[in-house]
């Protein structure tokens, strides 16, 4: 069983494809979603795809270093910070408008 698993163990290619697919899903969600919270989730997926990418490269390209891990940890922290700011703004906007639909965010025209 373990031999079988080892034979089909995903390599660098598979992992990078997974990251690219995740990133594309996030980008698609960001461009098509109308709910601000869903957009923030899509951003989170994109940032996490990038973090995973860094870890994958670390594992397969420079297994004896930790630069990629450090990068991933900081990306996670920054993603969290970004979402906190985004959610805070969404909450305060919801109080004013009772809606988080980004299609209605067109009060400024020029």
């Amino acid at each position, binding site marked *: 069983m373990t031999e079988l698993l080892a034979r089909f163990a995903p390599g660098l290619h598979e992992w990078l494809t997974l990251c690219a697919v995740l*990133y594309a899903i*996030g*980008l698609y969600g*960001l461009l098509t979603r109308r709910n*601000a919270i869903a*957009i*923030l989730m899509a*951003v989170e997926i*994109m*940032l996490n*795809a*990038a*973090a995973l*990418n*860094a870890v*994958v*490269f670390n594992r397969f*390209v*420079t297994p004896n270093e930790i*630069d*990629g891990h*450090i*990068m991933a940890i*900081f*990306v996670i922290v*920054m993603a969290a*910070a*970004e979402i906190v*700011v*985004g959610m*805070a*703004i*969404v909450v*305060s*906007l919801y109080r*004013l*408008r009772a809606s988080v639909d*980004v299609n209605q*965010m067109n*009060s*400024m025209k*020029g």
Partner: protein
Amino acid sequence: MTTMNIAYPEIIVIATAFIVLVADLFMTERSRAALAPIAALGLLVGIAVTATLTPVTGELLGGRFAMDPVAWWFKIVFMLASLVAVIMSMDTLDGRARVRPRGMGFRGEYYWIMLSSVVGMMLLISARDLVTLFVSLEIATLPLMVLAAWRRDDAKSGEAGLKYVILGALASAFIVYGFSILYGLARSADLNEIARAVATEKSPAFLLAVALVLAGTGFKLTMVPFHMWAADVYQGAPTPVTAYLSVASKAAGLAFAFQILFRLFGDMLPQWGALIALFAAITMTLGNVVAIVQHNIKRFMAFSAISQAGYFLLGFLGDASEGVPAMIFYLLVYVVSNLAVFACIVWFANETGKEQIEDYRGLSLTNPLTALCMMIGLFSLAGIPPLSGFVGKFFLFSIASKAGCHWLVAVAAVNSTISLYYYLRVVRQMYIEPADKEAQPPSPSTSISITVAILTIVVSILGIVPTIYQHIHAATITWLASLQ
């Protein structure tokens, strides 16, 4: 050389930020008026320490934080811009404005967040590896998003903040994905090592990384087609924040572009000349053409800032030894001129609560000196000799000309003429249109009057006094030698 003193400017600004935050806890609402002077004093000390910094070059933390002459100039510009922004915010936040905007409170947090953003920018230009670069970029921009959404009970401010967060996060996602690919290709997170490793790289993965990182840089620099956030964010944000955004985010974007284009992809930059020229032409033309039809002065200044980003891009063409000093000099000029104009806009919004261009009619009759200062600032942005804007633009245009892009110089010259037309629209309202009889004439404010006066004098003499440009030029030569 590894000496701690090269990090003193950052340490001083961080310390000031937390002193402001903690002091806010123990103060009564009345005594919180002292917070802005504390923040301004901290920034002044930071500028003074940076000015006396020797040796200018050095590194810390195993080479992850480095100080060099170009970083020195950027840090001075960042701290000056935020110093002026702090002084401009005072009237609005301390309730001295005649028309008080709702929800502009929380002074301690406001200055704390503003100073955090300055620290991020200062670290950004000193960063020497991908992680530090990315984290400092986020420290610089996240506070700006918070500031844009500062007025909690104003839907426009919240909308501006949300748009900034979403598009800023998209830009960060581009940048960080590009960085992770670069890290994989170069097997290192150190900027200089990556630059060496990718010097001859031509693989599709590398091109994808370059495209992603450059798109992210374009967002920060408000380069067309990545400019769409700027107009709404500038218009919706509280006016003092717009003033800060217009100069600080542009300066941070330029610092980030320096790190990316000169340090990371310095060997490839000459091959990208045609692409950069194209983006420069589109950016300045679109910014200018759209600015003509604007009525809201903040939105108008946003498009003016977008077209200015196009002029900055000219400096990336041709020889770096001339492009870099020209860009830093123009950044200094842009910051001073734009802040001079914005100081007048902030003051006018404080006094009347209005922000349409038509509302400025007859300002030269009620407040002749302010109108004159605003006109000088606008003329400097348009590039009228002998103001500093002309000198800065002249350097940038001559670089494009020397790089062989004569068509681009023609486009830029036509754009300067267009920009003169729309800047004159504001001047026309102030000087030719009659004043509104019923409206109460706005009264001057001490802090903003002094700021405007000093900025106007600087705008006028910066282009005439040659020492500053000479110093920037000398600094650049040592910097470029260290890049090789």
